[in-house]
């Protein structure tokens, strides 16, 4: 029987699974987890690996037999931090962010037009893992790119730079940055209205492997097992991309991965349906899209969630008959204790209110809108962003959502979203909700590239349909 191991080194937990690979009949054989060993990521990794393979404890990396392929991913040490520099916010900067997020990164800083001195100081004092420098269509603007390249060259920034802007400036930018580490990729926006994110995503992956893996103590694993790791969200992205290809009856899907620190939303659906009554403005979003919100989380980011989603949380408290001070002390408690499990009905309700707020805001930022416009030809809608109304399945992943027994935590905020404000929010109209039992998606995601049929079968086999309550 063919087997494979997948291990994900998370910020808090290192989890792994042993899979039997048998096409659509693939199955989970074992699952193990251990707290992530911050001072030596390979230690926790090895502990999980030896347990999954039934090897004696104390087996070293070098002694692990090579007959079962081992896939792994990491989001430890804050994941993959990317600073995006683009030209116009709604065009090349927007695409730079999409490219970064779809490669499994988190956009920690975003700059448009010219970098100021403060921006450069910011990059020097809190360096990201990668700087993505973009801007200008091919044959278009070069001025800002060259200026920004010179500023970076003159600074103390040592972060690797990926240049994905105007092709006509590539050689000059590479020369300006020759004493730093610079990588050139194809322009992520070669023409207005065209996006080309794949080359940038590849480069991000290459740098992740070379630089960041080594810096985080994962090089030993790579060396011993010969396996290319991914940033954790990249695996989930590849899984979401694969699902409709392997199972066309599972097209138009959305995954909400809610964690302690971030909430990620993935969607795989056509972004714009051309009809006589709607016009698309701005970038035509990709069919497979990931957004990651670093301020929306249930534990590490509980405080920033409380700030960002204040209005919705207060409304939720009102509906539940609870008061602000109760939430304030709950937020203080869980931010300090990232493994905290709520006790009693009140705490569970407070946790649920936070979870619904995460879903609401993460979805709000991922989906597009329709705005009414009146023209002499009649009423027309103007769409910006991505249309998720046709999404048929919404899958909840991450600790909280994967333990759901019914759909309220996801269904209620999506419904509130759709009816909020003047613009029509393009949220899923009538989806079925599922829980990713056991939070298998990140583990299965690691298999998606090499074994898409098996990965999709495994992912779908553990989904629990969530009934509507009441």
């Amino acid at each position, binding site marked *: 029987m063919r087997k494979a191991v997948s291990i994900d080194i998370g910020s808090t937990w290192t989890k792994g699974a042993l899979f039997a690979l048998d096409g659509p009949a693939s199955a989970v054989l074992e699952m193990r987890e251990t707290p992530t060993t911050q001072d030596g990521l390979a230690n926790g990794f090895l502990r999980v690996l030896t347990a999954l393979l039934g090897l004696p404890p104390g087996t070293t990396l070098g002694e692990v037999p090579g007959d079962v392929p081992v896939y792994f991913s990491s989001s430890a040490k804050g994941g993959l931090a990317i600073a995006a520099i683009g*030209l116009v916010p709604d065009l090349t900067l927007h695409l730079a962010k999409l490219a970064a997020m779809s490669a499994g990164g988190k956009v920690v800083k975003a700059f448009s037009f010219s970098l100021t001195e403060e921006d450069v100081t910011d990059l020097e004092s809190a360096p990201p893992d990668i700087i993505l420098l973009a801007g200008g*269509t091919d044959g*278009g*603007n070069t001025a800002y790119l060259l200026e920004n390249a010179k500023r970076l060259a003159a600074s103390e920034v040592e972060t690797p730079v990926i240049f994905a802007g105007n092709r006509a400036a590539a050689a000059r930018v590479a020369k300006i940055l020759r004493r730093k580490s610079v990588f050139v990729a194809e322009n992520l926006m070669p023409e*207005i209205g065209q996006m080309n994110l794949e080359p940038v995503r590849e480069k991000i992956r290459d740098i992740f492997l070379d630089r960041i893996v080594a810096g985080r103590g994962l090089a030993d694993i790579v060396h011993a097992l010969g396996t290319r790791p991914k940033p954790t969200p990249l695996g989930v992205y590849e899984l979401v991309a694969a699902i409709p290809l392997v199972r066309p009856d599972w097209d138009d899907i959305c995954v909400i991965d809610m964690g302690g620190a971030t909430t990620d939303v993935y969607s795989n659906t056509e972004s714009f349906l051309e009809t006589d009554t709607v016009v698309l403005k701005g970038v035509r979003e990709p069919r497979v899209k990931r957004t990651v919100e670093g301020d929306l989380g249930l534990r590490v980011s509980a405080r920033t969630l409380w700030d960002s989603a204040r209005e919705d949380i207060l409304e939720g408290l009102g509906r539940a008959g609870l008061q602000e001070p109760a939430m304030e002390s709950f937020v203080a408690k869980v931010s300090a204790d990232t493994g905290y499990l709520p006790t009693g009905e009140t705490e569970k309700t407070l946790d649920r209110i936070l979870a619904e707020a995460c879903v609401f805001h993460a979805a709000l930022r991922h989906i597009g809108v329709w705005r009414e416009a009146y*023209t*002499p*030809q009649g009423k027309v809608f103007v769409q910006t962003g991505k249309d998720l109304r046709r999404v048929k399945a919404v899958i909840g992943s991450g600790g909280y959502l994967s333990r759901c027994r019914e759909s309220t935590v996801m269904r209620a905020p999506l419904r509130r979203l759709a009816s909020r404000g003047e613009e029509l929010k393009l949220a899923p109209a009538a989806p079925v909700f599922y829980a990713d039992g056991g939070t298998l998606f990140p583990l299965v995601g690691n298999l998606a590239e090499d074994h898409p049929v098996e990965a999709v079968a495994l992912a779908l086999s553990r989904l629990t349909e969530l009934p509507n309550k009441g």
Partner: protein
Amino acid sequence: MSGPTVVLGVIGADCHSVGNRILEVFFTGEGFRVVNLGVMVSPLEFIDAAIETDARAILISSLYGHGEIDCQGLRDLCVEKGLDKIILYAGGNLVVGKTPFAEVEAKYRNMGFDRVFSADSDLKQAAGLLRQDIRTSFGEG
């Protein structure tokens, strides 16, 4: 071999699209590199595209008579965004009612447009003027 870049579109809440396609084909044939934003284009979208593509001119069509409101402040926006030298043309049915063209032209020139064309203007002549204006302002082509 492609010539200077020009941004083209129909401004505001206007979805007349046939004329826009004709203009795109025509100006491309005249050797310009046309970035066609289509219909219902806002002022900022024209500007964003002009910046990214390093365009020499923005050609704004308006056919439903309300162009004046839509075009207000466009030259100021260009200046703010560092597009001081960019050439701005407006063309189409630019006002409601039967105002003499000379008045229409004066109004739009006052708003910062370099040239103004009526709906039945000679396109070939317009292309020639555009080439000339680009040469004058940018010393190119």
